C-alpha cells in the first residue's frame, strides 16, 4: 500500500465526544486500517480551529501524508476549511475527504456503542474512498464581458442599466414590441401612489438610448449554446414589417390603418389597437409592429394603407421583411421574463367572463390609467356608469389547493390600492374580502391604515361565489357577492355594482420550456429554482445563468428592482474576475471505450454531451457538465467516469462501510 493516510477525529467539544468514543475510534482506525495505509489516527477537541488545522498540516509535512480523512461535522460546513489546510501544506485539496459523524451520528443517535461502531464504519468507508481520490485542478474558464438579459420588465430593465452603467455591454431581448412589462400597464404604484409611467418611462428611455445596450424587442431567444463565460444565444427578431432606419414613429400608419383589433396584451382586452400598432404612447422603441394575423393586406392582399400614407423617405413599411436570426455572445445571462396573470375563468363561481361587471386586476389597472381605454374613469362594462359599490376579492387563485397553493404576495397591497382609487375617484362603498391582510414591507401597513381611515370596509372571508341571481328586491340588477364574514360567523350576501378580482401571479405559461432552453429548473409551483432560497436568491444551478424579478417567485416592484440590481452585481463580479474557477467534479468519456451508442447524449439536461460524428464517439464539454453523474451510471460500456465520484470510489466506499476491508480474523 503506497498511500499514507491520516485520520482525524473531532470531538466538537461534547457535540461528538458526548456520544461517540472519539479516542477509541481514532485508535481503532490507526490499528485496524493500518493495512489500508492509515499511518496516524488522532482525536482533537476542535478540528476546525486553527490548531486543529495545523495538526493536519504538520502531519502532511512531517509524516508525508498523501491522503487525509477528517471525521467531524457535515462536509457542507467545513470541507472547504480542511481542503484549504491540506493545500497550504502542499497536498492537493481533493485528496482530503470529510466523514460526517456529527450530523449523521452523534446528533441523531443516543446509543453510545452503536454510535461509536457507526463512526468506525463511516471512517472505514471514507478511507477506502479517499484511496481512489485523484488530485484535481479547478477548471478555469474565461468570461466574455457581454451580458444577455432576457425580459424587458422592470427587473430586466434595472439589471441591464446597472451593467451598462458599469461600462459593460448588454443585449436586452424582449418578446413584446416594447419594453416596460406589466409595470407599464399600471396606473399608480403602492404604497406611495406614484404614477407608474412617471417613474418607469425615464428608465425605459435610458435603456433605449444607452450606448452599452443593444435592445432587441419583438424578439425571442430560440437556442442557447455554450456555458458560463461563453454562451451563444440564437435570437429570432420577428419581422415587424417596419424599417426602423427610416421610421420616425410619427404614428400616421396606425392612424390610417382601417383594421381595429382588441388588444388582449397591453390593454388586457379593455381597449383596441390597430393591425399596425405601438402598444402605448411611451413605448420604447417608438417603432410600430405589424400584427400579421389581423392585417388586411396579409389576409387578402388588399389595403396597404399604412404604406400608402407613410410620410418617410424611403417608405418605412416593408411587406417583404423577413424574420432575422441573430447570434449573440455573452458571458452571463439574466432571465427576467416575469409572470402571467392567473386566468380568472378557471374559477367559474366567480363569474368572470360571464358576468360583465366582474373585472380582473389588470383590467382595472388599465381602467384607472389616464392613458387607458376609459381615460382613467372607473366605470362599469357599459363604459359610462360609475359604480356605487365595489367588492375587491382577494386571493383569487392564490392560497388555494385547487389552483395555486402559494401566496401571490402582491395582491393584498394591490387590493388596498384598488380600494383607495375607487373611493377617491367615485366615492363608492368598497368592500375588501380577504383571508389575511399581509403588508410586511416598509410603509405598507401604514397604507392599510390609510384605507381603513378613508372608510374602506373589510370583510374577513374568502368569497365563495358571485352571482346575479337576486333573492330579494335589494339584490335586483346587482352582483351579489356571497361570503362568510368570519369575524361575526355569518354568511353575507353583498349586492354591489362591480367586482374586482385580485388575481394572483403565475409562472409564465412557457416557463418550463424556456427554463430548459437555459438549463434551469422550475420548482413545484413552476417558478425558477434559485441556487439557495435565502443565501443565493438570484443565481441558479447553472453557472452563469441568473434570475431576477417574478420569474423566481411573485414579488412587487421594489423587490423586482432589488433582484434586478442583485443579479447585475453578481454578473459584474464575474466579469471583473475575467476568469472563473469551476469545481472539477465532472464526467469524462474514455474515447477508446466509447461505442458511440449515444445513450448518454439525451440524458444530459445541460446539453454537455455531444456526439462527434467523425470519430463515432461522444464527448463531454467539461464547462457545461455539472457533475450529476447520470451519464456515468448509464453508460453501457462503462466508458464514462465521474471525477470525484467514480465507480471505484463509490464501490470502495461501499466495501469500506460494510467493513469488508478489515483483515480476516486470525490473519
Amino acid at each position, binding site marked *: 500500500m503506497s498511500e499514507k493516510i491520516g485520520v482525524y477525529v473531532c470531538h466538537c467539544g461534547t457535540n461528538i465526544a458526548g456520544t461517540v468514543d472519539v479516542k477509541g475510534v481514532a485508535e481503532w482506525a490507526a490499528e485496524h486500517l493500518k493495512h489500508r495505509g492509515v499511518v496516524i489516527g488522532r482525536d482533537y477537541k476542535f478540528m476546525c480551529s486553527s490548531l486543529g488545522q495545523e495538526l493536519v498540516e504538520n502531519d502532511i509535512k512531517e509524516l508525508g501524508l498523501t491522503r487525509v480523512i477528517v471525521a467531524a461535522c457535515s462536509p457542507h460546513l467545513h470541507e472547504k476549511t480542511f481542503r484549504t489546510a491540506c493545500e497550504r501544506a502542499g497536498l492537493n485539496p481533493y485528496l482530503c475527504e470529510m466523514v460526517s459523524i456529527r450530523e449523521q451520528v452523534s446528533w441523531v443517535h443516543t446509543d453510545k456503542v452503536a454510535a461509536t461502531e457507526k463512526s468506525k464504519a463511516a471512517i472505514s468507508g471514507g478511507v477506502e474512498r479517499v484511496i481512489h481520490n485523484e488530485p484535481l485542478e479547478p477548471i478555469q474558464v474565461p468570461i466574455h464581458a457581454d451580458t444577455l438579459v432576457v425580459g424587458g420588465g422592470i427587473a430586466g430593465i434595472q439589471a441591464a442599466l446597472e451593467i451598462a452603467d458599469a461600462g459593460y455591454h448588454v443585449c436586452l431581448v424582449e418578446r413584446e414590441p416594447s419594453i416596460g412589462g406589466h409595470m407599464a400597464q399600471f396606473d399608480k404604484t403602492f404604497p406611495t401612489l406614484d404614477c407608474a409611467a412617471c417613474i418607469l418611462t425615464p428608465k425605459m428611455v435610458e435603456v433605449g438610448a444607452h450606448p452599452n445596450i443593444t435592445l432587441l424587442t419583438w424578439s425571442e431567444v430560440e437556442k442557447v449554446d455554450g456555458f458560463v463565460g461563453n454562451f451563444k444565444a440564437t435570437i429570432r427578431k420577428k419581422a415587424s414589417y417596419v424599417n426602423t432606419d427610416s421610421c420616425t414613429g410619427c404614428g400616421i400608419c396606425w392612424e390610417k390603418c382601417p383594421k381595429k383589433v382588441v388588444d388582449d396584451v397591453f390593454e388586457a382586452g379593455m381597449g383596441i389597437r390597430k393591425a399596425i400598432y405601438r402598444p402605448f404612447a411611451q413605448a420604447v422603441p417608438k417603432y410600430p409592429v405589424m400584427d400579421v394575423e389581423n392585417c388586411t393586406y396579409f389576409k387578402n392582399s388588399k389595403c396597404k394603407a399604412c404604406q400608402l400614407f407613410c410620410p418617410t423617405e424611403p417608405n418605412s413599411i416593408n411587406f417583404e421583411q423577413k424574420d432575422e436570426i441573430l447570434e449573440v455572445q455573452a458571458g452571463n445571462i439574466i432571465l427576467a421574463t416575469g409572470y402571467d396573470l392567473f386566468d380568472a375563468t378557471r374559477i367559474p363561481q366567480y363569474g368572470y367572463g360571464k358576468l360583465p361587471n366582474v373585472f380582473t386586476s389588470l383590467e382595472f389597472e388599465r381602467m384607472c390609467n389616464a392613458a387607458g381605454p376609459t381615460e382613467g374613469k372607473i366605470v362599469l362594462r357599459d363604459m359610462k356608469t360609475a359604480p356605487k359599490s365595489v367588492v375587491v376579492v382577494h386571493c383569487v387563485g392564490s392560497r388555494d389547493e385547487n389552483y395555486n397553493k402559494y401566496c401571490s404576495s402582491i395582491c393584498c397591497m394591490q387590493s388596498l390600492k384598488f380600494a383607495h382609487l375607487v373611493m377617491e375617484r367615485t366615492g363608492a362603498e368598497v368592500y375588501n374580502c380577504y383571508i389575511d391582510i399581509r403588508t410586511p414591507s416598509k410603509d405598507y401597513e401604514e397604507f392599510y391604515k390609510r384605507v381603513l381611515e378613508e372608510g374602506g370596509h373589510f370583510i374577513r372571508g*374568502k368569497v*365563495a361565489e358571485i352571482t346575479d341571481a337576486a333573492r330579494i328586491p335589494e339584490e335586483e340588477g346587482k352582483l351579489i357577492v356571497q361570503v*362568510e364574514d*368570519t369575524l361575526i360567523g355569518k354568511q353575507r350576501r353583498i349586492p354591489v355594482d362591480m367586482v374586482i378580482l385580485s388575481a394572483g401571479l403565475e409562472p409564465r405559461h412557457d416557463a418550463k420550456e424556456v427554463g430548459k432552453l437555459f438549463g434551469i429548473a422550475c420548482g413545484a409551483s413552476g417558478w425558477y429554482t434559485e441556487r439557495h432560497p435565502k443565501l443565493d436568491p438570484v443565481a441558479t444551478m447553472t453557472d452563469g445563468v441568473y434570475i431576477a424579478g417574478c420569474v423566481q417567485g411573485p414579488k412587487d416592484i421594489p423587490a423586482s428592482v432589488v433582484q434586478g440590481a442583485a443579479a447585475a452585481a453578481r454578473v459584474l463580479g464575474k466579469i471583473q474576475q475575467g476568469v472563473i474557477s469551476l469545481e472539477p467534479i465532472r464526467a469524462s468519456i474514455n474515447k477508446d471505450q466509447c461505442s458511440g451508442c449515444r445513450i448518454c447524449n439525451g440524458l444530459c439536461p445541460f446539453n454537455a454531451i455531444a456526439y462527434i460524428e467523425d470519430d463515432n464517439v461522444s464527448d463531454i464539454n467539461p464547462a457545461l457538465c455539472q457533475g450529476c453523474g447520470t451519464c456515468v451510471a448509464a453508460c453501457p460500456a462503462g466508458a464514462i467516469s465521474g471525477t470525484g465520484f467514480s465507480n471505484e470510489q463509490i464501490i470502495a466506499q461501499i466495501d469500506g462501510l460494510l467493513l469488508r476491508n478489515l483483515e480476516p480474523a486470525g490473519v
Partner: protein
Amino acid sequence: MSNELSFSNEIANVMYATHGNPIKDCLQCGTCSGTCPAVEFMDHTPRAIIGLINAGYRDEVLASNTFWSCASCYHCTVRCPAGIDIADMMYALKRYSMWKGQHQEGLIGPVFAQSFVKMIVDSGRSFEPLLAPTYIFKHGPRGLVQEAQTATGLMLKGRLPLLPKKIKGLKKFQNMVRRIIPIGEPS
C-alpha cells in the same frame, strides 16, 4: 407531549376512508360557510365548527346542530382551498356524536339515521312509508297533515308501494352486516 388524542385527531380518525383529512390545515377562510346552502339553519357555520374542533371544544361541537343540518352536497369540499373534505367531516361528526350518545335534543337526524339503518338491515332495501312514523311524530300535527296529503297524492299516483320489498339472500346479507356491527343473532 400528552398521549391523549386531540379532539381534532379523534375526528380525523373517524374519517376512515379518506385517511386523516387535514382538518388542521384549515385557514379559517370561510369558503365553506360562504358556500353552504344550509348555513342559515346552523347554529355554528362550518368554518366555526372546524375552529371549535381544532381548539378542542368537544362539548360545544357535539351540542351543535351544524353537522345534522349538512345536506351532503359537497360544495364546500370541492371549493375548500385547504383540501379538507368538509362534508365527510360532517359525517364523521355525526358518527362520533351517535357513538358517544351525545347530541342536541329534538333533532330528527339521529333518529332518522338509526331507523333507516334498521330498515336496511331488516330488509336489504329502503322503503319510504316505514320511515314515516319516526319523523311525522317529530313534525307534530301540522307536519302530519301535510305529510298525509303528500303521501296520499303519491299513493294515488302509484308511487308508494304498500308492502316493503326484501332482498332474497337476506340471511346471508345479515351475516355480512354482522361481521361489521353487532345486530343480534339470526332469528
